[in-house]
């Protein structure tokens, strides 16, 4: 594996991993999160 290969691989993997972790962190940290969650019971098929 060439130095260019290492650079491309590390840059690609770290950028997508970094973005993924940042997104998860933002979702968890979002202060208004609870207000935007609308978890209520849906009707199940059997009840229809």
């Amino acid at each position: 594996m060439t130095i260019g290969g290492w650079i491309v691989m590390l840059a690609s993997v770290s950028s997508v991993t970094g973005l993924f972790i940042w997104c998860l962190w933002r979702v968890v940290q979002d202060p208004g999160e609870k207000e935007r969650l609308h978890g209520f019971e849906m009707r199940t098929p059997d009840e229809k």
Partner: protein
Amino acid sequence: MSVAGQERWSSRYGVIFAVAGSAVGLGNFLRFPGQVAQYGGGAFMVAYFLSLILIGLPICWAEWTMGRYAGQRGYNSAPGVFHVLVKSRWGRYLGVIGVIIPVVIYMYYVVIEAWCLGYAVNFFAGNIHFGSAEESSDFFSRFIGVAADGGALGLGWDRVNPYLLLVFFLNFFLIYRGVAKGIELFCTYAMPVLLLLGLVILVRVLTLGTPDASVPENNVINGLGFMWNPEKVFLERQTAEGWDKVTEIIGQGARDEAATQVASDPSLRVREVGIFEQLGKPQLWLAAAGQIFFSLSVGFGVVLTYASYLSSRDDVVLSGLTATSANEFFEVGLGGLITLPAAVAFLGVSGVAGMVSTFGLGFNVLPLVFAKMPLGAVFGAAFFFLLFLAAITSSLSMLQPGIAFLEESLRIGRKQSVAILGLITAGGCGFVFYFSADLKALDTLDFWVGTFLIFVFATVQIIVFSWVFGTHRGLIEAARGAPFPVPAIFAPIMTFVTPVFLLGVFGLWIVQNVFGINFGAGAPEFSSYVKDLFITPNPVAWMSIALVVAFGVFVAILAACAGVYAKKPEGTTP
């Protein structure tokens, strides 16, 4: 208001898991590595990330926004979304494609899903211990019945039948339970398990080292180099027509050996293809844009339906970005480091070259690799179970648009809509399963629906969002409930760049894959898909097209007759 309008996701995490699960599929682990290796890591990734920004993210945000907007007005299906967004009464018919695509793809995708589960079970049971590529290929051919139509019939654990029945009913059982208690609940557990399995297999692959000390060039580092090196080095032989590739050279040992060969044979040469030469090839751009496009599942119509179950203040910007980034992590961070490096470590570059197609890599090369690996039965079972989980979270998402449309247009409940869609997809699935010779039915449907129609529908969606609904209005709508808005730079991108880039890629795809013009790599020739229909007509190919048309007509008739589309909901006329 549709009957389905009462359904909602129960949490933001659930919808993110579900959308990410829809996007993460076989392509992340099997198609992506082959594409990167073929075009050289550096050049491919430049085009890949550019396509992500110019096509992937804009269409993703457009779908989330349009879906939520229509969902607030009581519509959950693609015809309903376009009925809300397009002023003309014909708008609903644009959405018909958004029902055809996921339902028809489900008909063959569930068959491939059954292959994955079948391989996982057979690995676990110790039935797969191939000694040669021929054994691996023979098992796969018998398993899926590729030799003749009806070749997959017959019972047994080494046949696809029992797995197909199991996964078909599992999909419908989960769909029957509904959006929150079926899809969301399953994806909330399946996605973390998928991640865990991926990480375990990744650690195993990266610690393989050099499995056979007598063949030192077959090692993981060379496997990574095969994928990620930005420059490709080939040994080529001069012929009457020009220079033909003999093999790709990876590693210092192979370079030294090639230099010796070149010194003794004047018809040979070593040629290095740099990153800029690769970037000049239209095929590379087509491959990179296509990979982003199909990997993110944009243009499927799935996200439109999924987002329609959000509430008005639920975020779409960060949720869409998170689902996209999850897909990218699975694809680049796991898929890019697992499959090809493992294959090269055991089989060498020459053993893998030419076998990097999705099915070739997944069901011929990798079973051979796991068979040679210590604890191969365990890791083989884990890997194919990972593929199965990736596939089922995608196939579930393909059913929901059809369910939503039936509920909406016929004003029926989930029980009835599941029964109707079950019958339709059982017929289509049986068709694909029976006509297994050369995988003709599967291949034809995948080309015309799984590729061609997706291009069409993605183009329709971005044009409707940018030019009918309006980019400015769309981005304001997207910002509702979001912790941050879509960056302003995306306004001109979504209005001009994405449609032009998408149409350019679509045009290039038609030129290459329909008319067979391959930009300097051989004489133009119509693709086999065109030949199967018009030059040397193939009955199975024609029946496949007839199946799609019949289902399309059925959906269009329902869209035409449904009272729910009789008038526009108030306050939605663009």
